[in-house]
């Protein structure tokens, strides 16, 4: 989950557009390697930036294997454990590809892995939607500080951060350009 930058501070770039492209290519290959092909895969992007990332990874896989990979989106708003501490948020669309997720290998795609709570919510959402044969996780950035026993199977970049720092992911589809920046710092 990407945190918005309150101060408008640009911060320092830790991944530029070329780095991001390479990372996503590598993730596409890793997924294929782990799965021994594209069979039975379903990619589900978590709103908001996980969705375009999932599409890019799907495109990458299709380029290598020549077969399209079913891709969709998953909204976890209703499953969050912090609903009562914020004003009500409207949910986004959950679009499960035709063919569903029963018996499939579902790969969740998100931009930043942090406390792990979003993924925990996603796992609960998935269990209400069907019964995959396996669920894996691909993230662009892992910034540490897990609060739950959750780990990613495929990581674009490991980014050790301080809690006071903010990680910001920008993508062409949502923000006009690709970049991962860190702002803030020790206080």
């Amino acid at each position, binding site marked *: 989950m990407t945190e918005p930058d309150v101060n408008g501070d640009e911060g320092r770039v830790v991944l530029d557009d070329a780095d991001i492209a390479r990372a996503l290519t590598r993730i596409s290959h890793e997924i294929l390697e782990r799965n021994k092909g594209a069979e039975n895969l379903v990619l589900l992007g978590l709103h908001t930036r996980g969705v375009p990332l999932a599409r890019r990874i799907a495109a990458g896989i299709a380029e290598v294997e020549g077969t399209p990979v079913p891709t969709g989106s998953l*909204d976890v*708003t*209703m*499953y969050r454990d912090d*609903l*009562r*501490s*914020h*004003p*009500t*948020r*409207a*949910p*986004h*669309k*959950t679009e499960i590809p035709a063919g569903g997720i029963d018996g499939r290998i579902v790969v969740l795609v998100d931009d930043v892995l942090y406390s792990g709570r979003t993924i925990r919510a996603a796992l*609960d959402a998935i*269990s*209400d*939607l*069907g019964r995959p044969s396996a669920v894996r996780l691909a993230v662009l950035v892992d910034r540490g500080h897990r609060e739950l026993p959750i780990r990613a199977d495929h990581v674009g970049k490991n980014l050790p951060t301080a809690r006071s720092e903010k990680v910001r992911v920008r993508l062409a589809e949502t923000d006009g350009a690709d970049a991962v920046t860190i702002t803030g710092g020790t206080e």
Partner: protein
Amino acid sequence: MKKHLLSIDDVTADDIAALFETAAEMHDVQRREVKKLPALRGRTIINLFFEDSTRTRSSFEIAGKWLSADVINLSAKGSSTSKGESLRDTVLTVTAMGIDGLVMRHSASGAAHQVAQWLDVPVINAGDGMHEHPTQALLDAYTLTRHLGTLEGKHVAIIGDLTHSRVFRSNIKSLAKLGARVTVVAPPTLMPSGVGPWSARAGFATSYDLDGVLAGEYGPVDAVMMLRVQKERMSGGYFPTAREYTVGYGLTRGRLAMLQPGTPILHPGPMNRGLEISPDAADAADSLILDQVSAGVAVRMAVLYHLLAGEETGA
């Protein structure tokens, strides 16, 4: 969004749009095998119905349960005056058990407004006398939006016993907020008192002539909403016989043929088949009456979610 939903006055056009987006997501839940979202887990909602209603109550019950809330149905029969207990005492006794939300239906107009002043928890008006039924109007508008797209500039005809209809009073407001134009049709005895100045102020048209309206005298009609007529009104002398009402104001087969194909037909239910709506019209391809029922659950889920899931924002 405001703390309570007592009247359509409590939601802005933006609130309605947000509710419809959420409702669309909730609608998908109805088709899943596991019809549950955990958003209201651990919340307790009481359906306090002073007036019987199987359909609205079960719609709210399903909506709450699909959001994982604990829903309890209570009927308080008759007006509390007959038992000597004030309405305030009745409501405070029920809520003293520690609840998170109250859904209330009462036969007296304004009851929900009064109750909301006595309670800390959000109150949702499931129908107060002849005054308003906001979730019904929301699901009516949601159903129409799914079929017609935006309601901006669309012309909706509402026909029936307007005097006694809370569905009419809420719909007049919600359709106006969504930019639709409304013409209401009823015999003179069933037009609300003071409708002349009221309609001039609120911007809706009135007519005693259903055939004229359907023929386009007030512009082409994009949707038709039939209201239930209670047969008891005959003994009140509002109209002489059921037969005469149907000929003048029913959606007969002949009037059905006057509608353009694709014109949605709505009815809040329960229907008096043969009185205000012919079987042909009720079962016509363009009848959205069953859609309204499934929309009702989705819209009520959206309302419960928006009012009860997040932190309290007051108002």
